[in-house]
């Protein structure tokens, strides 16, 4: 218990302090000899041209070859196509290695009440010391992206160091995208592309490449069912999947992000237990890489959105960028979208059959995440938000007499012989954010995150540290995050964020009326973070 609490304290602070990864692509700056601001508003947030560049497979949407200042290397003359199939289909590689790097560093200040959690550990325990102020290192990541010709785009990013001091990083995204493959079937232009590999789901608003210092709470929300025996609600749900997780699989997509429709449908590995690829291996079925999935089932993700560009002039409205009176700019637009993720959370238990023989019992609990999103942009003001509803079916374990087995299931073998359906574990939440580009080099940000999870609240009252957010004072966790970001140069950014975090508690009393546990004396452990971030 002591170790878990200590680990919890460390994780809590790390989660609060260290922001999500994000990338701008200096490799493209070199190749096209153009500024980061050609594609980014406040890197890595994309402007309309950047969205079109990404949609096109990391190319200029038209006449790409006329913009490339470093000619690509031909892997076979174009005329070799006439020799196919008696030759390898010719392609190209970028004329210089399209590699970029990113590094960031932080200064942070934490509330005085940061030591309140120490009271959770037994007297005499030496807890990690959380300094009031701290200089800390962030990540050092390498990334590469480009196009191999024939509309085959690639992307790989890897955090070489995460959270400093030679910490082991990991692969972010790594994929090939076959752009506009629909042309082979005479489909309308850009109506079908194919992406294969490891990628962030086509989320309404990216988290892997967000310009925020801290991640969106709802994207990090796993669904761990309530197991507090003091309350009637009991869930045998242990689904650690979050929407922020990178997915391994295949994705079909079409349309454009800068106007009109856009859709994507992805079939990806399921991994709801959180086992890592490196650890998911068998001594009997060798695999040098391990296995990324923890079940045979493949999850499904779908997204559909439509963006209404609101310029009155048709030519401007249908262009990649709007024609402003003083120069091209992002469109005034309203983007509406929805998304749906479906999977089957799998839990395997050591149990018994009706004869009392030990068997492995498998609970396959369908779950889904569904929601909608909007984004409204007027000149340099962007207001956007997202709502999500999470739902996990709940299969409670029962013994041979048909009585519920107390949770969490323990004992090997446990008395479990089967499962019965019970009330689902659900959560709702989302965020709303406003970005205002005061100057081309200065962005003011205001954000509100909210996650409403009954199971988290009940588990918190039992000090269950396995839940996504421990010790929440309310069932709804609100976080307010004002911030401001400055581009010192197009590739160097100073950012500030003040995280007014959800209320928590460490003191529990028994409600004299209900007799149930109740939290008292709430507090917020707020954090101010300043970061310096550069890419090159």
């Amino acid at each position, binding site marked *: 218990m002591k170790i878990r609490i200590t680990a919890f304290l460390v994780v809590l602070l790390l989660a609060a302090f260290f922001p999500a990864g994000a990338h701008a692509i200096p490799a493209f700056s070199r190749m096209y000899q153009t500024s980061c601001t050609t594609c980014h508003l406040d890197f890595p947030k994309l402007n309309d041209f950047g969205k079109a560049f990404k949609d096109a497979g990391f190319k200029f949407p038209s*006449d790409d070859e006329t913009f490339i200042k470093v000619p690509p290397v031909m892997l076979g003359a174009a005329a070799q196509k006439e020799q196919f199939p008696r030759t390898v289909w010719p392609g190209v590689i970028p004329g210089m290695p399209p590699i970029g790097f990113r590094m960031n560093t932080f200064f942070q200040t934490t509330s005085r009440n940061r030591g309140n959690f120490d009271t959770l550990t037994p007297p005499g325990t030496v807890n990690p010391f959380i300094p009031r102020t701290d200089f800390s290192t962030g990540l050092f990541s390498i990334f590469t992206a480009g196009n191999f010709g024939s509309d085959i785009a690639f992307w790989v990013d890897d955090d070489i160091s995460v959270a400093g001091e030679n910490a082991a990083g990991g692969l972010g995204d790594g994929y090939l995208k076959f752009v506009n493959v629909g042309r082979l079937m005479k489909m309308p232009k850009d109506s079908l592309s194919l992406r294969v590999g490891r990628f962030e789901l086509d989320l309404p608003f990216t988290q892997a490449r967000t310009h925020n210092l801290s991640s969106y709470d709802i994207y990090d929300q796993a669904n761990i069912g309530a197991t507090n025996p003091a309350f009637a609600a009991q869930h045998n749900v242990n689904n650690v999947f979050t929407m922020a997780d990178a997915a391994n699989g295949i994705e079909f997509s079409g349309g454009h992000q800068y106007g009109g429709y856009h859709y994507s449908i992805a079939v990806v590995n399921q991994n709801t237990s959180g086992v890592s690829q490196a650890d998911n291996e068998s001594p009997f079925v060798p695999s040098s890489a391990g296995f990324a999935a923890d079940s045979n089932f493949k999850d499904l993700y779908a997204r559909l959105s439509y963006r209404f560009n609101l310029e009155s002039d048709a030519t401007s409205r249908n262009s*990649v960028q709007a024609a402003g009176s003083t*120069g091209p700019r992002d469109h005034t637009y309203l983007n509406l979208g929805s998304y749906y993720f479906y999977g089957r959370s799998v839990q395997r238990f050591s149990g018994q059959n009706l004869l009392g023989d030990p068997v492995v019992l498998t609970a396959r609990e369908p779950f889904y995440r569904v929601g909608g999103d909007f984004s409204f942009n007027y000149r340099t003001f962007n207001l956007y938000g997202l709502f999500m509803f999470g739902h996990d079916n709940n299969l409670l374990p029962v013994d041979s007499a048909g009585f519920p087995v107390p949770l969490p299931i323990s004992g090997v073998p446990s008395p479990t012989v089967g499962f019965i359906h019970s009330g689902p574990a659900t959560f709702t939440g989302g965020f709303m954010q406003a970005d205002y580009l005061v100057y081309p080099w200065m962005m003011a940000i205001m954000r509100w995150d909210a996650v409403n999870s009954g199971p988290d609240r009940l588990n918190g009252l039992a000090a269950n540290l396995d839940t996504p957010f421990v010790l929440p004072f309310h069932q709804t966790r609100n976080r307010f995050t004002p911030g401001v970001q400055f581009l010192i140069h197009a590739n160097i950014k100073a950012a500030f964020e003040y995280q007014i975090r959800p209320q928590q508690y460490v003191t529990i009393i028994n409600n004299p009326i209900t007799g149930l546990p109740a939290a008292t004396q709430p507090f917020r452990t707020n954090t101010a973070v300043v970061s310096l971030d550069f890419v090159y």
Partner: protein
Amino acid sequence: MKLRYLLSLSIVTLMATQLCLAGSIKGKVTPGKSVVWVEAAPGAKPVAVDKHVIMDQKGLLFQPHVLVVQTGTTVDFLNSDKVAHNVFWPSISGDKKKSHNLGTWPTGQKKGFKFEEPGVVSLLCNVHPEMSGYIVVVPTPMFAETAADGEYTIANVPDGQYTVTAWHEGKKLQSQKVTVSGTATANFTLQ
């Protein structure tokens, strides 16, 4: 026949005299590739012309990078790229009151602007901040763009006293007095 012969002789003599009076200014500008021009006489109006020249935006570049025009010239800004561009200048020879933004126009179309006053116009595009170009508006027809090594010759300069000015990207303008009597030399080292 005799009259026609005498007339021809007179014309040839006049032309020869004129050629003798029209000298030149030569010299070298360090560092290389610059623009040199003869200023208008004090109090005199710039010599205006009525012509159109093109400044292109192609491949995320202003082409040519430096365009020298005489006062009165209309520069037609052409967008030859398949991306949206903009043209603006924050000042003319440092005078911010002369800043101007031409706006946006589609691929293949152009927008003209007549430069009535001499000065150095620093062209920018507000969506591609790396794009840079210059229009040097000169007040007389006596100007030259130097070779890469900075050598230049301004021909057809009548004898007399002049102020000659040199400009190079990123350097301060520099002027000097020159007396032309046949030929004259004016070397510049711009800082």
